């Protein structure tokens, strides 16, 4: 494999504590090394910023609902198509790009690892087929557990060993990475057209509460010592006044310490918190509760979160929170797709236009940014848009601009049609903090990598780590206009993925050597769970057990993380 030396760049690396020092970064055999031979290819980074490849902690980029979104929104492809090139396939789509475009666009922004946020286990093969067709970036996928009948029954009977054995089996069967929980209990209730709006609403028939589901899975996750913590999207998403439900959910983790060998410190990751930080009791009184939410997060080191920033675009919402999407279609009357999945989950899709002229949308925009600006520990608060729910991931550079430039935020705030109302309902006008490049590296690299239990591989530039490096034509000391920030991060100067140069001056030059990460958690043989699985498949599933597992050839280049929980 080739060697590279990235010369004279200004390095920002929270992993090694380098805050904007001019340094050389050496790459050999796919890893960061101390030094390279004289044959190494030299990349000039003088006056440029050098960071590790970014890590996406939560995005919907592959799988049944993403693809339904593509297929049922031909309009999303308008004006977005690019022909193929020497190293690229043709690619298109805005909020739900094709798999090829997903890989290319992430790479061009310097992202090298991406986690698909919700994989219905029955559709795992589909998710992996798409991941296989997404070039360059390393990916993993989180199977959903929060509405699974096995989990309900074992937790209700307090059978923790069985929960763990089932989690281990499902992670292996679906080649999954972590425990995802979406609207626990509520998505099952949606099977009957109902929902769980607080964490204490019992799930119809199963007689268990969302709080019990989350607490149970959290306990199992820590007993197993998985790389990532439980990854939660709690109940009551998107409703005015829902911040109380959010805080109730956070409190489930209070005082619990993480147990694992991966350097992870949190026991709960809450995703797209923007959608869960609303005050008021109606759309008229809708307001930000970002401060209340962040006060809790700042005070409790055992949790991490990501933002879910609204980017004020026309986008496509999609989630395993089926009842929410039905609620949304009754609000905006746009086309509604829904898929309930037997024994496992539900899901829905609705296009959405975040119109800056609409007060609620502008407040949502402000909340996403407020959460980041209130964060005291950027190692625990990560930038996402919950792609494509609050906006497409291709807007990350714009979010960086808003976070790094108070002027650009104030300009936006003043430009809204309902400017006064938006300013009154949020704190953003009074927040003059500007996120530094070092903090940005924490929020997009070191932080998410650590939260995922991958801090020894990704998100840093220490020798021995994966050679995922991004070089941006950006000098923190010489920013003439906020637009420079967006421009620089939209198109990296160089991106190296696992030691291969994949982006050169914004152009894709290689499709790299992408891998799929999954977690093989070994547990003692559990014949009860084996029998229960067989029985459920015999009686209630519509496919046979022997046709359920994702075969290895759908995961052609796996990176398996083994966890021994014996």
């Amino acid at each position, binding site marked *: 494999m080739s060697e590279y030396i990235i010369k004279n760049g200004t390095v920002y690396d929270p992993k090694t504590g380098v805050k904007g020092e001019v340094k050389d970064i050496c790459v050999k055999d796919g890893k960061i090394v101390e030094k390279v031979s004289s044959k190494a290819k030299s990349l000039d980074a003088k006056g440029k910023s050098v960071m590790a490849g970014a890590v996406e902690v939560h995005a919907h980029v592959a799988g049944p609902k993403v693809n339904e979104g593509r297929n*049922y929104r*031909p309009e999303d492809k308008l004006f977005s198509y690019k022909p193929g090139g020497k190293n690229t396939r*043709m690619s298109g789509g805005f909020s739900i790009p*094709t798999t090829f475009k997903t890989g290319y666009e992430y790479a061009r922004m310097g992202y090298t690892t991406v986690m698909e946020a919700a994989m219905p286990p*029955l559709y795992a093969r589909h998710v992996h087929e798409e991941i296989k067709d997404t070039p360059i970036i390393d990916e993993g996928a989180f199977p959903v557990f929060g509405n699974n009948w096995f989990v309900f029954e074992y937790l209700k009977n307090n059978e923790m060993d069985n929960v763990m054995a089932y989690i281990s089996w499902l992670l292996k069967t679906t080649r999954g990475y972590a425990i995802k929980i979406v609207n626990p209990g509520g998505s099952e209730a949606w*099977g009957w057209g109902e929902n769980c709006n607080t964490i204490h609403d019992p799930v119809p028939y199963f007689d268990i509460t969302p709080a019990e589901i989350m607490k149970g899975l959290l306990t199992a996750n820590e007993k197993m010592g998985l790389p990532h913590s439980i990854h939660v999207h709690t109940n009551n998403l998107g409703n005015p006044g829902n911040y109380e439900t959010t805080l109730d959910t956070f409190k489930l983790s209070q005082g619990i310490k993480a147990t694992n060998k991966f350097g992870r410190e949190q026991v709960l990751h809450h995703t797209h918190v923007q959608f869960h930080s609303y005050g008021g009791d109606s759309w008229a009184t809708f307001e930000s509760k970002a401060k209340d939410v962040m006060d809790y997060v700042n005070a409790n080191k055992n949790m991490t979160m990501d933002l879910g920033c609204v980017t004020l675009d026309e986008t496509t919402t999609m989630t395993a929170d089926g009842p929410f999407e039905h609620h949304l279609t009754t609000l905006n009357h746009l086309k509604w*797709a829904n*898929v309930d999945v037997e024994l496992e989950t539900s899901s829905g899709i609705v296009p959405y236009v975040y119109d800056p002229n609409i007060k609620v949308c502008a407040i949502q925009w402000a909340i996403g940014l407020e959460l980041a600006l209130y964060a005291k520990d950027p190692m625990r608060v990560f930038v996402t848009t919950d792609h494509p729910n609050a906006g497409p991931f291709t807007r990350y550079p714009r979010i960086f601009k808003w976070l790094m430039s108070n002027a650009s935020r104030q300009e936006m705030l003043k430009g809204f049609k309902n400017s006064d109302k938006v300013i009154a309902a949020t704190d953003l006008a009074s927040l003059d903090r500007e996120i530094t490049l070092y903090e940005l590296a924490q929020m997009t690299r070191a932080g998410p990598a650590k939260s995922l239990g991958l801090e020894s591989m990704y998100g840093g530039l220490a020798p021995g780590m994966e050679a995922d490096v991004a070089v941006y034509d950006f000098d923190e000391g010489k920013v003439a206009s906020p637009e420079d920030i967006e421009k620089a991060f939209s198109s990296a100067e160089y991106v190296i993925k696992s030691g291969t140069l994949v982006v050169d001056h914004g152009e894709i030059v290689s499709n790299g050597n992408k891998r799929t990460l999954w977690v093989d958690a070994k547990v003692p043989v559990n014949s009860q769970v084996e029998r229960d699985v067989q029985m459920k498949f015999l009686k209630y599933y519509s496919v046979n057990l022997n046709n359920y597992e994702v075969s290895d050839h759908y995961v052609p280049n796996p990176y398996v993380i083994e966890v021994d929980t014996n």
Partner: protein
Amino acid sequence: MTKTITDVICPFCGTLCDDLIVTTDDEGKKVVAVDNACAIGAEKFIHSSDHAHRVTRPRKMQDDGTYKEISYNEAIEHTAQILAKAKKPLMYGWSSTSCEAQSVGHEIAELCGAVVDNTAAVCHGTTLIAVQNVGIPSCTLGEVKNRADRIIFWGCNPAHAHPRHMSRYSIFPRGYFTGKGHKQRKIIVVDPRCTDTSSLADIHLQVEQGYDYELLQALRAAVRGQPLAGDVIAGVPKEKVYEAADLLKSGRFGVIFFGMGVTQSLGKDHNIDAAICLTKDLNDYTKFSIVAMRGHYNVTGSGQVLGWQFGFPYSVDLSRGFARYNPGETGSVEILKRQEADAIFVLGSDPGAHFPMQCVKEISRLPSVAIDPHITPTTEICDVHVPVAFVGVEVGGNCYRMDNVPIEARKVVDPPEGMMTDQEFLSAVLKRVQELKSN
């Protein structure tokens, strides 16, 4: 000793049964028995084993209309040449093959600027358009089995077209919340004819041919409790419409299955718009879903692979170097009618039997190749016929069920010696096309 293979996937219809038990002879070469399958599915396994009556090498049509055997290499060269030379080749079919093969085919199409289209063009394409108009509230077939107490079959006849659908998923199975099976379910069949499916119905709405849209909208009104004008609506007495509406609303979980009777009759996608809106309306009262009765075992998969690679489910025109989708313009039938294609490639489908005569004539006029294990009307009008192994019998691969659930088909026996699979053949063509295009 015979060999038994369990959990075999049936490569026939969109029901994609995955519980077949196939017994082969001692050497594992010939299928001797198929258990659990319907008559059609079983026949697919049995007849593939009859190697004596199969074409096992590519054939080229001579000037006098007879066929001459050619090698696979010659067939690969022929296919690569006609595709590479063409400005706008049509690559049609894809519904009876694996997703892996489709994926290779799409790469060829991209290189050659082809139009890629699947059998939805003359089947559920209208459904896909309707979904693009109004969305689709749906569910997996296991949800139907476990929860549904109201089943509507509209313009479809699963008793014959999807023979095990009713026993596996919709009418008879006993699921988690449906322990009494059939007794717990009410069945409505909407069909102008009396069929074996309608004989099972609690209510058979004998809609007048071509009036599905009217009946659907009347049901929407009746569900909302609005008055209906006239005593007879679309051939159905008004009272019966109200009765059906009440039955739908009174269930806890309902599902509408619909087929070609509504998708390709008068009104086309507008019928499906209305059916989806009815489903959506019913969600204000109870839980309701709608599922298209997809035909070929992997037509759904073709839509999926096209979706993640190009963003559109069918009728994808790559001839301008980027993907365009405009059904009515970029569909196979329209392109053939306008004589716009300059080469034809057919795989895993039989347009010769199902397209309008004008289009069939056009296929026969153009440089062409048909890839199909069988002799079909299409292979008889194409310049070259390339027989391949049966997907789901002689080679595995991923397939998508009508509810989009992916199931990996299994290999049961070897193909006749020396025969290529779809994927092998396409990969060889791709390699050759790359060579031709690089010059």
